[in-house]
């Protein structure tokens, strides 16, 4: 029986809110009411209207299309960054747990070193060196999250290695790598999944910060972060321009956090022991 059945509302609410942001973003790959970059100066700064349900921005672009494309780019960057940190962090953590000893210390010290660098600084230097682009944003955010996954993987894997079924696998002569792939990773998948959702949320927030400093994707590709940053000075003229992207960011982060909490409760280690 689920440990607290009524707690699952956070899972479903999380799924609902996340989809409310992800679906339009995915849709924007194929279609948006207007091309996001279509500038029409005469139609600038209009309020909502049948033609433009969410109004237009200072260059006359359709805000709804911008939000959809912006969400797509922001989520794309977040996914890319988390994929990068999972792709490198998880194997590192697993290796540290499998080998232990001096390699374990070395890897963990290495991730501390990476952790010591403030993320913002890494992003700024990367953007300055390579010029702001989607790749740089992904690299900057991904590098910073890497130690988180290394640590989570290592501490989860270290608890699985002494389990009896792993000893049985070692007895059958399987190599450490094969045991990691067949026994260790599947059993820590749920904890990783929770981290993925939480780190996605954090990545979207960090992208918003980078956008504010002008280090995220260059124009004309919109991202939620830069839309929010550009709209700051228009706050008095039309607050809608700042509120909408801010709301989209908040909803995306809220949805992913709820999803993460819901997953953590649903994937409670019920499988191991009979209640």
């Amino acid at each position: 029986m689920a440990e607290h059945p009524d707690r699952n509302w956070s899972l479903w609410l999380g799924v609902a809110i996340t989809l409310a942001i992800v679906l339009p973003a995915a849709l924007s790959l194929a279609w948006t009411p207007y091309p996001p970059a279509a500038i029409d100066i005469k139609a600038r700064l209009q309020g909502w209207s049948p033609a433009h349900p969410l109004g237009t921005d200072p260059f006359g672009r359709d805000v709804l299309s911008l939000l959809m494309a912006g969400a797509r780019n922001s989520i794309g960057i977040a996914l890319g960054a988390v994929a990068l940190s999972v792709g490198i962090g998880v194997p590192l953590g697993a290796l540290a747990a499998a080998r232990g000893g001096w390699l374990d210390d070395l890897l963990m010290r290495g991730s501390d070193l990476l952790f010591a660098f403030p993320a913002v600084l890494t992003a700024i230097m990367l953007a300055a060196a390579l010029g702001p682009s989607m790749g740089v944003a992904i690299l900057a955010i991904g590098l910073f999250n890497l130690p988180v996954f290394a640590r989570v993987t290592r501490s989860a894997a270290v608890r699985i290695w002494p389990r009896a079924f792993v000893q049985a696998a070692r007895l059958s002569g399987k190599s450490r790598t094969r045991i990691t792939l067949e026994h260790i990773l599947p059993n820590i998948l749920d904890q990783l999944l929770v981290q993925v959702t939480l780190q996605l949320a954090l990545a979207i927030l960090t992208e918003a910060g980078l956008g504010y400093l002008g280090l995220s994707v260059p124009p004309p590709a919109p991202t939620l972060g830069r839309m929010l940053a550009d709209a700051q000075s228009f706050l008095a003229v039309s607050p809608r321009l700042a509120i909408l992207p801010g709301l989209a960011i908040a909803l995306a982060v809220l949805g992913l956090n709820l999803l993460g909490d819901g997953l953590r409760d649903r994937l409670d280690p019920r499988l191991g022991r009979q209640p």
Partner: protein
Amino acid sequence: MRSLLRIAAALLTIVLASVLVFLALNVLPGDPAAVMLGTEARPDTLAALRRQMGLDQPLPLRWWQWLTGLARGELGTSHTYGVPVAELVAARAVVSLPLALLALLIAVGLGIPAGLFAATRHRRTGDLATMAVALVGLSVPAFWIGILLVLLFAIGLRWLPAGGFPGWGAGIAPGIAALILPAIALGLPQAAVLARVTRTAIVEIMRLDFVRTARSFGLTRTEALRRHALPNALPPIVTVLGLQFSFLLAGAVIVENVFYLPGLGRLVVQSVGGRDLPTLACLVMLLVTAVVAVNLAVDLLLLRLDPRLRHRG
């Protein structure tokens, strides 16, 4: 013995960081001299300035001079401002450090009680409501909160300045007044994080046997939580606090922008833009050292808090 090992590891991290920093900074495209002389400068004047700044010497030599200078405490002069780097960075640290501490104070003052309150009402409305508020606090970008605070308190009610920093010379009160709004903007999201961590840690511990033992001695559920669960929940809370403080030091650059505070974060952005290498190098070393020091402090504090760790010395 173990703590000696840890201190040595921390020092190693710092030296390694210095190599990484110097290499990274010198690989940045863009010539500091050009930045200073602007669009009209002639090639010969550029060369003169570059000689003046010592940029024409080979890289390893400059790294060695810089590192030994660092050890001796000479941090060189800023390329952009022409002021000794130590002075410049100190003036900024005097703003960023109190801001980070104030934000941390707000985070602890709001976050931990909220987490405690939610834990005591586990799975009842009090818990869900607090956690919902915490989630919202977590989801809103810090600079958005900043802007809203300015609109309300600075422009609307005129209680607090919209930004800037009068300097501690003008007295403690105006200094604090200038830091309140930015500290709230920075502190709220961190409070949300802290509330969630505190609640989860306490709820996990409340399930453990020794809490039930304590209740069997005659404590009510809430008394057992405060006397037994909270002390055991301190290690995870302290760990998160350590991470948050390191983030607040340099991660606050965006809030510093919104409130135009002369903090470390903005100096970082400025130095990268202006290719002010000595300042940037000193800044990064300061931030890395601070983070390593904070991690070390957290480790040593954890030793005291959790006796089980103490045996591992």
